[in-house]
């Protein structure tokens, strides 16, 4: 906490939207606006430097969407989403009890959002940014890219370039074009966000993109190993083999 006052960061790519939000927040007692950012990358940097308690996060922004920013943001920071109109997102916010304010802004609504963010910070309620992002996608659409934070850098991996993912405790190790990236996410939540006709959980702790498989080799009785087009080897369990067979017919 910033000396009793709640530190707020405003993230929106439209200058008028930032200025009106600042204006409304200025009237809420106990709130201090620490800064404004015009995009997600700036927001991640500023969040590291300014340690806000709450970010007001626009959804449609260049480079990184609000949902992607949330995935990469320190989980101790509370988020209030800002949107003009997005049925899917609003449903997702309701389901996941994430706070949001609609444009055009209503001052009372912003004050209420600040109050709830305060409660959330006090209760230290965990949040699942990936599940929220998945719920905000229209039905039948899948994750198209994965964002990973690597220190100050943000990597954007299109799913076409994602070869495989491997569970590593609370992280997934993503392999793409010979490089590997670590992301704080469970393999199950990643698998749930990807198109099931393209990505298959071939093993309890391995996920592969089907068209990245060059061939399958028998490893031992009832277990196999998939050789990917980049030469890497991924174990395939009996269940994983069955899933692959169902998918490939």
């Amino acid at each position: 906490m910033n000396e009793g006052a709640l530190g707020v960061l405003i993230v929106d790519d439209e200058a008028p939207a930032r200025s009106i939000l600042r204006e409304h927040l200025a009237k809420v007692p106990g709130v201090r606006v620490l800064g404004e950012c015009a995009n997600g990358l700036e927001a991640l940097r500023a969040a590291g430097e300014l340690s806000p308690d709450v970010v007001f996060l626009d959804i449609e922004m260049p480079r990184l969407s609000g949902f992607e920013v949330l995935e990469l943001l320190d989980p101790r920071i509370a988020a209030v989403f800002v949107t003009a109109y997005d049925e899917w997102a609003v449903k997702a916010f309701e389901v996941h009890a994430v706070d949001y304010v609609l444009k055009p802004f209503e001052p009372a609504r912003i004050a209420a959002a600040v109050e709830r963010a305060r409660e959330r910070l006090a209760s230290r309620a965990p949040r699942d940014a990936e599940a929220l992002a998945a719920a905000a996608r229209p039905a039948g659409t899948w994750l198209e890219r994965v964002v990973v934070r690597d220190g100050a850098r943000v990597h954007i991996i299109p799913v076409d370039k994602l070869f495989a993912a491997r569970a590593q405790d609370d992280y997934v190790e993503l392999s793409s074009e010979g490089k590997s990236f670590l992301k704080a996410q469970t393999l199950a939540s990643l698998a749930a966000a990807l198109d099931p006709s393209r990505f298959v959980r071939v093993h309890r702790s391995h996920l592969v993109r089907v068209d990245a498989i060059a061939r399958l080799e028998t490893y031992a009785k009832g277990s196999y190993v998939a050789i990917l087009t980049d030469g890497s080897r991924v174990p395939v369990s009996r269940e994983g083999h069955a899933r692959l067979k169902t998918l490939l017919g």
Partner: protein
Amino acid sequence: MHPILARPGRLLPYLAACAPLAAIVTALLARPGGLFLGEAVALAVPLTVAYAFMGLSPWYLCRQFPLKRERILPIVLAHALAGAVIASLWVGLAALLAAGFGLIPAFQGLPGRFAGQAIALLAAGFLLYLLSAALNYVLLALEAASEAERREAELEILAREAELAALRAQIRPHFLFNCLNSISALATADPPKAQEMCVRLGEFLRKSLSVGERKTISVAEELALSRAYLQVEALRFGERLQVEEDLDERGDLCQLPPLLLQPLVENAVRHGVASLIEGGKVRVSVACSAGRLRILIENPLDPDAPARPGTGVGLANVRQRLAAKWGADGLFAAKRLADRYMVVISVPAEVAA
């Protein structure tokens, strides 16, 4: 399958309609010096029924050889040959029947009397074939006309649907709510600008609503509409949104379906300029030469941005509307390059009458 044989309910009325033919054949066979009347009737009835079916055959040939001035000789030859074959078969059948009936005592001497009538019957069979062929051509022409009418009605419906979709897409809630938010922001920070935004937004909405009812509008009007939209967006995006126009005044009066360009310009802003941190330039260029109107809309985009859902529908709509108006002559192409997106429209340059 022949349309008369395709439905059982049509067969009986068709055979009934052939009854006058039986009378004609009877009269033909019972001419003075020919058959007795009883014999003529006995032969005419089965021959008429047989011809009723044989007379359907030109339909297949008529469909195979649609009437065309440049192919008239092969068509005439084909029908003459088919007519000769059908008439010969018919006369052959008549001779067989005559021979059969001749075995009955009451009809003694019938084959001999029939032989004298065979040539006349052959000529009648041939002429009947030609008549049937002519009738079939008339029916096919009527069918083609009603088919063309149906297709035209379908195109009309398609054009209406496209128009409706364009209108619905016009007032994108996202755009409107964002505008209202900007106006609310400017109301205290910069009141004159807030007023300007209200005016621009009003202008844009008014124009959108008024042009939607018209079948076509001029390029100049459509560009004015796009400009009004861009001016509203410029107030939201500030420096990030730049616009470059490269116009050809010969294209100003050319006609387009309304609200065709504006959604494309809006895509260029929403999916292009808005996806870039530094923003970028939307380029609109119009060229008119050699009887064609060409319009190019180009925008930069974030190479890492996934293909946005929804744009496909909008582009299909543009394509459909151009096809409904110009058929294969209305061209539309959209291309995503590494860091740019462009759409091109090329249509006949048509000035309002």
